[in-house]
């Protein structure tokens, strides 16, 4: 299977967010429409639904094109993605009104308050989550599709 390797890399990279998205939508429908929770989750759906799968796919294409030179393990390559994704996502969330930056900390979805001391552990948690997702899920799909 030597044809269209970049297309296969894109599809393999976009696989995890596409897998999680129906779960996120189910949670959204249950909380927002069934339980009538007064939290504007729908504004936050745009980023994971429209941008994250494409960025995952592009990031996997970048790994495939650069792997011969860098020899970077796919888990570490995936762990670098939050460095790009988190500032971009935070900027978009601020514009959409679901992230408010205050003097003591930040407020997500007008409901969840995080002091600034918790931002670093959250960022480290995101790095760990991305490392594991890329190493075990994207790496597996890459092997099945003959990329890795």
């Amino acid at each position, binding site marked *: 299977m030597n044809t269209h390797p970049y297309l296969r890399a894109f599809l393999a990279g976009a696989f*995890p*967010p596409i897998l*999680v998205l129906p779960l*996120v939508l189910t*949670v959204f429908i249950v909380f927002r429409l069934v339980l009538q929770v007064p939290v504007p*989750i729908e504004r*936050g759906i745009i*980023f*994971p639904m429209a941008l*994250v799968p494409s960025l995952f796919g592009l990031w996997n294409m970048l790994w495939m094109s650069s792997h011969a030179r860098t020899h970077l393990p796919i888990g570490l390559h995936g762990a670098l993605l*939050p460095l790009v*994704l*988190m500032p971009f*996502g935070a900027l978009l*969330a601020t514009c959409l009104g679901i992230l408010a930056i205050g003097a003591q900390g930040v407020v*997500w*979805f007008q409901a*969840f*308050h*995080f002091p600034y001391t*918790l931002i670093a*552990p*959250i960022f480290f*948690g*995101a790095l*760990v*989550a991305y*490392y*594991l*997702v890329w*190493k*075990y899920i994207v790496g*597996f799909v890459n*092997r*099945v599709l003959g990329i890795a």
Partner: protein
Amino acid sequence: MNTHDEERIRHLLKAALPPIENTEPGNSGPARDLWPAILRRLDERPAPPWFDWALAGGLALFAVAFPATIPVFLYYL
């Protein structure tokens, strides 16, 4: 060109060209099933190292300790 020459040319052509049934459209796949080889290759993967289990456990503990972070993680996935 006599019959012997024709036979010789036919034999040489058959030896030089690939079998025609594998070059027809719709029948250009591999000669054997490759899926068992892929499954074998996937099974050869070693078990996850201990620090990956530790990282996964730490992440789960963090989510349990701070459940409000779960929507933020889902936002980025």
